[in-house]
């Protein structure tokens, strides 16, 4: 697997390269700013681009904008955005053009190496990985007459895990219930939120995120 990295902190960049190298993931190119990302993506056509949100020259959401540009110019390029802070607005921007092969994680998740590598592989394979904190924010925000109010606490939990891209089996394991129970919860959630029941991992995530993103936008 070949990745490119856009990260301005040399320390973190070299750390990432080594960490990925240990897991037999090859880093083919790195850049230290946002605008450079598109160039190396077009040059190397990697399996995944890892991007830091805050980079020069503006030190605001440079990396996010670069990621969106990549998604627009080369749709289908899997992208993992790392951020010091998670903000739901960044997440909804990012999945606005489709959640396939999109990841958005707190930078510090890098230190849980096994989980991080797993996330990298899932995104490269077209999956969706969204930081639990973002999901928490999306679920935490409330509006009057919000259909989310109709969900039971357990259903909210299941919705949060679904949005993170977990499979039914993983959700069942997390909540210590049977897969059948999870399926029942999910069909309840889809009915209450008026969503089209969707099969398969990322399409389901997309439906949920699109719903949450719509509520937050």
């Amino acid at each position, binding site marked *: 697997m070949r990745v490119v990295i856009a990260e301005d902190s040399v320390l973190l960049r070299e750390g990432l390269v080594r960490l990925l190298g240990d897991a037999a993931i090859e880093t083919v190119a790195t850049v230290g700013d946002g605008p450079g990302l598109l160039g190396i993506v077009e040059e190397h056509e990697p399996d995944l681009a890892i991007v830091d949100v805050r980079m020069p020259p503006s030190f*605001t*959401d440079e990396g996010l904008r670069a990621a969106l540009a990549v998604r627009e110019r080369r749709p289908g390029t899997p992208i993992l955005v790392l951020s*010091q802070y998670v903000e*739901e*607005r960044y997440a909804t921007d990012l999945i606005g053009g489709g959640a396939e092969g999109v990841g958005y994680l707190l930078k510090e998740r890098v*230190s849980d190496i096994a989980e991080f590598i797993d996330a990298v592989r899932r995104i490269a394979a077209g999956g969706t990985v969204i930081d639990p904190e973002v999901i928490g924010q999306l679920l935490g*925000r*409330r*509006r009057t007459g919000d259909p989310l109010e109709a969900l039971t606490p357990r259903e909210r939990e299941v919705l949060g895990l679904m949005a993170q891209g977990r499979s039914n089996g993983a959700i069942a394991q997390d909540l210590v219930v049977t897969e059948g129970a999870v399926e029942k919860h999910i069909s309840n959630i889809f009915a209450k939120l008026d969503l089209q029941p969707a099969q398969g991992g990322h399409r389901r995530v997309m439906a949920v995120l699109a719903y949450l993103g719509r509520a*937050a936008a």
Partner: protein
Amino acid sequence: MGELSRDIGGGGAPPARAGTPDGAHGGAHGGGATPAGGRRASVMDGSWRPAAMARSAVSWTSALYIAVSLAFGLGWFVTLAVGLSLSLGLLIVWVGFPLLALLMVAWRFGARLERRLVRAAFGVAVPDPYRPMPESRNPFVRLRTMAADPATWKDLVYLGLLFPLTLVEFVLSAIVWGLTGTLLFMPLIVLFGGGMEINLGQVTYWSGNPVEALPVSAVGLVVLAGALYVTRGTAIAHAAWARLMLGPNASQAENRELRQRTAHLRASRARGVDAAEFERRRIERDLHDGAQQRLLAVAMDIGRARAKLDQDPEGARELIEQAHAGTKEAITELRDLARGIYPAILTDRGLDPALSGLAGRAPVPVEVDVDLPERPPAAVESIAYFIVAEALANIAKYARATRASVRVAREDRWVVVEVTDNGAGGAVARPGGGLAGLADRAATIDGMLIVDSPPGGPTIVRADLPCTW
């Protein structure tokens, strides 16, 4: 953070007000020459209908002033004429100087008195126009300042001309009120005078008893209305003259306003500086107590692990696990701290997403409604954000609320931020506390913060911030 105390169940804590309620909407932006202060009636405005004028106290105080002011006029005329000629005549032998100084102090006192009287009689405020007195206690310095002040000499002109003015006013009102009185009380005159020849235009008759004189009283009512108008007109003229001669001129009025504004700004700057200092201390404390201690613990764990590595690899592994967890906690803490100093999303995307993020992290459901046509200046956004952050933190800590709402809207020239919860109420913005600090920050941009939290709730924290900062 969050030193907002909650007086739950205790004696009724009054709604706390923090910030500068007077500074933001009042004084600084107030109009110039309109009668300020107490909202009492003035001859300048108020209804012109005779019935309303007859009921208004200011008509009668005006009439009273006009009736007695001739005495003041005459008194000042004599005092000034005698005093001035005496002191000017004695200038040659130097006695004139102290006499003149005494007279000047006297007429300035007279002018002050006259301002009070004009205000009491006509309801027209005439602010003191004098230059500020020097700090010095030296009477000569003070006298020189008085003599150099044009207002002192305008006082003299006013008091000197008060006699002819009040004479005219007195004669005019004596005629109209005398006529009014005579006609109105004709029945009584007839009763005690034993009859009178009545002459009403075409109609002429001999009135022998009070009832026959009643039509005259009716005419008197009409004349009364006329007398009220004459009094009103005289009062307006007198008040205008007094304002012209005794009040500050346009540039003085402006000066005065600027001085008030300067004082207000100085106070708010001091509050802002204090708030910034407080904030720096808080950051230092948070860094010291939080991330620094955690990293120290991590360093110790790693140091111990290194020492154990050969003899006790299993123990070393445990210590490394512990250190790993410790670094993650330190990162989280640093991140929260950095966000508390300035949230990156606020610069990037503005208030709506930043507040949504805050709401999402709050432990109770928070409804967010941001309705701003355009992004306010960065200082306003930042203060608005931190007010919401502090309010939500307080709600989480003390309010025992089950839900809260945040509203940000543009109202006229103001960005209004309102955080409401359904909790226990009784919140007080304590000096030195988080909310008081935010009120100070709001004051630096001429905004204000109000906490309204009756015991039992609901609590409303509202900030009005100018969006033209």
